[in-house]
């Protein structure tokens, strides 16, 4: 089940043994998995990049430069977001990519970001939104149904964009929608924040891992699936060095947040795909009989999802597996009595919008 990109991420020096054809495929897989920057930085750290032909290394260089630019822009944008939130007495708590980059964590090395995610306590979300609107952020073009849907059933408000900056800001108040099975007490997340720079906060190391795993296993589309699993692997190798007690509290924290299921899958697939070292017994501790029973099916689905979104890497039934995971994500997100009317409505809107476009 192994594939070229996976081997290269783990052992970058293997790239030196590849012929031109394999190099073409390696770069193409990395690019379509949004991992070209990460791979580039892994190679640079080992000094391998300069041993490659210049025609190949220029693509890695280009990706590193894009990453550097994103990081510079992120510093600028988060400065402004921080000002906006501070104006109403709220602090800025970064999630996912933005947190990895600004905290200068190994997981952020070469990682591309597409938007900025922050979290604020639910009861402060209106104040935060107003402040951001005052500071030049705007609610994008969104129809009233979708807007209502976000606000009533979502764990975030509709994405904000900035009039002068080409970036989207997602403002969350929880890490899962309230309609999903686990009832996550988001208040707990705010009790263990880490101040990575003055005025810039992230979740605790454990919560970052749990959030990443939760996001991954409730996600419906897996274009970035492999990248997200790579995030998990990097964190799981790095955090135990920052906090020797990291592993001990991880499972109980997941239990507290009602997210042991996601953590189990995250640990399991990080280990299966990237060989992430885990302490003995942790999978049994997070697992359960029902999870063990479903494992063959889940493996069938997820081991297909965690491959580059690239024709080189398709296994038999990859398309079917991705469709089933898409359905699964909706089913996990909300009960059927909400889901079915929502899907019907969306299908109707898609058709309607299509007609509207064509009459332009």
């Amino acid at each position, binding site marked *: 089940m192994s594939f070229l990109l996976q081997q290269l991420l783990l052992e970058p020096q293997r790239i030196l043994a590849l012929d031109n054809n394999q190099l073409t495929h390696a770069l193409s897989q990395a*690019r379509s998995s949004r991992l070209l920057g990460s791979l580039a930085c892994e190679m640079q750290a080992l000094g391998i990049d300069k041993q490659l032909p210049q025609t190949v290394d220029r693509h890695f260089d280009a990706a590193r*430069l894009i990453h550097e*630019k994103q990081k*510079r822009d992120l510093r600028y944008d988060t400065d402004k977001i921080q000002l906006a939130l501070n104006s109403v007495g709220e602090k800025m708590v970064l999630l996912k990519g933005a947190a990895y980059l600004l905290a200068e964590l190994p997981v952020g090395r070469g990682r591309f970001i597409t938007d900025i995610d922050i979290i604020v306590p639910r009861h402060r979300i209106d104040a935060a939104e107003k402040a951001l609107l005052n500071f030049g952020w705007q609610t994008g073009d969104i129809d009233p149904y979708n807007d209502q849907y976000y606000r009533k059933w979502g764990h975030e408000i509709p994405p904000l964009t900035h009039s002068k900056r080409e970036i989207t800001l997602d403002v969350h108040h929880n890490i899962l929608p309230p309609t999903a099975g686990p009832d996550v007490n988001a208040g707990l997340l705010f009790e263990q924040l880490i101040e990575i720079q003055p005025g810039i906060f992230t979740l605790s190391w454990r919560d970052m891992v749990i959030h990443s795993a939760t996001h991954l296993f409730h996600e419906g589309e897996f274009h970035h699936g492999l990248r997200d699993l790579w995030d998990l692997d990097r964190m799981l190798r790095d955090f135990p060095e920052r906090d020797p007690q990291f592993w001990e509290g991880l499972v109980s924290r997941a239990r507290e947040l009602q997210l042991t299921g996601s953590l189990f899958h995250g640990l399991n697939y990080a280990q299966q795909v990237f060989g992430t070292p885990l302490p003995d017994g942790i999978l049994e501790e997070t697992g359960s009989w029902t999870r063990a029973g479903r494992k063959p099916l889940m493996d069938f689905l997820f081991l297909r999802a965690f491959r580059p979104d690239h024709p080189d890497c398709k296994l038999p039934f990859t398309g079917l597996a991705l469709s089933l995971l898409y359905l699964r994500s909706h089913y996990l997100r909300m009960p059927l009595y909400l889901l079915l009317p929502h899907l019907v409505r969306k299908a109707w809107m898609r058709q309607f919008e299509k007609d509207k476009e064509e009459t332009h």
Partner: protein
Amino acid sequence: MQLLKHLPPDEFSRRLSQGEIPLRIGPYVYNLQSNLSGVAAGIRTLYPDFTLAGPDDFVDYNVALLSRNALQRLRGEAEFLFDMKAPFDAIPIGQAYAFLEWGMNWCVSLHTNEYLKLHAAVVSRGDCAVIMPGTPGAGKSTLCAALGLRGWRILSDEHAMIPPNTTDVVPLCRPVGLKNESIEVIRRFSPDAVLGPVSKETHKGVVAHMKADLHPASHDTKPLRAKVMIFPRYARDEPQQLSPRRRSDSFILAAYHSFNYSLLCETGFEAMKTLIENIDCYDLVYHDLDWAIGAMDGLPDVQGEQ
């Protein structure tokens, strides 16, 4: 060295549909794939003199223009694919060729940063390259096509690629994109103009591309020294003139026309500074192509080359 035109038609069609047409274009290898006859015809018309890379060469950009499934074929739609993923929405098949060309531009605009890249046409006379940045509609492509038809070499219609700390431009010669009235203007300008498929009702209107490798040196990959930067502007009702322009203004305008000036950060600033300090800058207002070409032929940097 095998040129595309050396492939027998049926072998070309088979290889194109399987994605086995790796072409050497400037410093890159683009591998092309398409299952659309219009796209195949366009490639045969506009790229016959390009060299095929070998099956064992590294490919920089894998691009495809495909109608991927029964539903797309039924709707008459196709997609541009990069690494077999669609970065854009599907488009009507009638626009496919234009989208392939735009997609190929997009690869360089977004994914290369070894050069300072300006959104500009580049032409040359002898060893003197002229960079012509331009906003859409300023007439840079029309002028570039006309220059190509009068013996100038076309180095690029879209990207001036400048290795930092040099005043060189790296050639990336591909077909010149002509829009709307420009298509007729160029047809009337020279019967020698070879045009590819016409794509109608695109977001830029009617689009057709002109074969650009008309000069014996078109496929040389060696960088050329840029000595002149001209900011062209087509204006029907204004007096035509070619007038010097201040370097400081030109710096700002060229940075505005750059794809990656800010991305390259300090390197970008230094690269632009080196370029602008060593180049003569002009404004060109024109409505008559022959007049504009005459004026450019008369520039001191260019005259010595003739």
